[in-house]
């Protein structure tokens, strides 16, 4: 029996099941698969579930359901299979999100390429063809943390903060990409710009992405992006989708 997964209480709000001490692809996959399994149990006292990079939060009222009882249920479910080897849940979507790399719209492409040790053209070739997965959503509503990129892109966050990058910015660090929900200061480098809205509060489907969805960010020209912005009424920013089989 290894130390993992661990089950710990989170205040009086619920239990957290953690699959690893650090971000790894299998641990993220385990979290996504295990959350889907908890959801499928449809336990009436579970208020909501969510994942972060390598853990699953099961929210329930500890004053109503004994902690030990929920721990037992979660342990039983954990024992049913090797979650680190579990396949990803079904019902996921692949998104193609048009992106302008570099230019004044995304001024840190060259800096990021240099940090990764490749020239800017090669950086755009790699980044615009990499298929990444939504590892987790957080920090701002609907905001995806996506990965993992190849080891080439294991570049640190910059020392200082960029004062503000706009909503829809594609930023990079530590083998991950983020599309920002709102304009925000950040230590991640701004390499691309999309017109993709991750959060649409007035819509009947306010969140575009779900954890486990996959994305590709094909390179388009400024002119193409401007045309997309001029005609887009959905918030998709010209993105096309297909179901992942």
């Amino acid at each position: 029996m290894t130390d993992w997964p661990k089950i710990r209480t989170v205040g009086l709000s619920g239990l957290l099941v953690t699959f690893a001490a650090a971000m790894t692809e299998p641990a993220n996959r385990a979290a996504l698969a295990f959350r889907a399994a908890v959801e499928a149990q449809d336990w009436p006292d579970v208020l909501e579930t969510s994942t972060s990079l390598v853990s699953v939060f099961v929210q329930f009222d500890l004053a109503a359901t004994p902690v030990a009882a929920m721990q037992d249920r979660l342990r039983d479910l954990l024992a049913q299979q090797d979650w680190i080897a579990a396949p990803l849940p079904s019902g996921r979507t692949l998104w193609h999100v048009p992106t302008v790399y570099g230019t004044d719209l995304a001024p840190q492409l060259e800096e990021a390429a240099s940090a990764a040790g490749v020239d800017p053209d090669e950086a755009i070739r790699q980044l615009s063809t990499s298929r990444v997965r939504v590892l987790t959503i957080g920090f701002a509503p609907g905001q995806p943390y996506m990965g993992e990129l190849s080891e080439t892109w294991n570049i640190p966050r910059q020392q200082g903060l960029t004062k503000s990058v706009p909503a829809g910015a594609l930023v990079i660090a530590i083998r991950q990409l983020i599309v920002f929900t709102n304009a925000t200061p950040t230590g991640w480098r701004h390499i691309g710009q999309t017109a993709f809205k991750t959060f649409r509060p007035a819509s009947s489907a306010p969140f575009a992405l779900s954890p486990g969805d996959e994305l590709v960010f094909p390179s388009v020209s400024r002119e193409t992006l401007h045309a997309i912005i001029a005609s887009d009424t959905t918030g998709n920013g010209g993105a096309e989708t297909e179901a992942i089989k």
Partner: protein
Amino acid sequence: MTAHLTVQLAGPAMTLQDLGRPGYRAQGMTVGGAADPTALYEGAALLGQPPTHTAIEMAGSGGAFTPGRDLRIALTGAEMAASCDGETLTWNASHLVPAGASLSIGGARNGAYGYLHVGGGFDTPLVMGSRAAHLACGIGSVLQAGDTLPLGSDTGHATGMTLPASDRFGGGKIRIVASMQTASYDAETLARFTATHFRRDARANRMGVRLDFDDEGFSSDAALSIVSEVVVPGDIQISGDGAPYVLMFECQTTGGYPRIGSVLPCDLPRVAQAQTGADLHFEFVDMADAIARQSRYLSELKTLKSRVTPLIRDPAAIRDLLGYQLISGAISATANPLEKES
């Protein structure tokens, strides 16, 4: 036709709040809702309506309001100076504000957040199942002078009711349970943490309450190696400079700072209501004690209605006391009652 409440003057941080939007954590949005949810239950008990109705949350100070119809209101949370057309209104009570009258609410005296509840609630559009502003997520906005808020239909009648005063104002002892990284702090740091009298920082808001203190910070080696994971309202994060932040209902969904403990949900309104500079100190309780306290709190919320009593007006608070005929039928001690008036 729908009647409205018009905001004539607005304090700097008034928002519509209800019990928030649960269910969206997986997509990056915390529940939000009233900073002091206890106040929503008190307003509901005073007006005889469900706690799910929307109220105006007033951080620090209130404003001036005029209803388009006769309006039942309740005033809860941090006590603020309140009057209707110049006549003082008792806090922690329900009142009738006539159509067209001016309801004026001033600065908070003993806490951080006051609440103005209305009979029938506010009937603004639902956004994702709630009417609460969630400013950190870009939902709703701070109320401004000139705003007109649609009023829901009110089926209740009672006014002039009150509840016993709550002791959750002015800071004090806050009970916490161990949290994700509590064990990574050494015993000496934890002892110093619970012995420290913190002060609520002026920068506190609906996302979190920063705590000021005089000595060195509360650092832990764990800070370097935490993979981002769930955070919940009540968690006490130790930020990079060693200062504790108590996370409130509009906090983010995940975080990478170590958490030294987590405030019991039943004690979180006391943190919310501590005004700038108020003392806050922490005591660890075990899980069984925490659950007993939280259960008691939840059952007290359910039975608040039974504690509502008629308001007995304090003569000192009646502005035009001398205008009242208080001694009708009394007789003079010096006049001879048998002597006929001429």
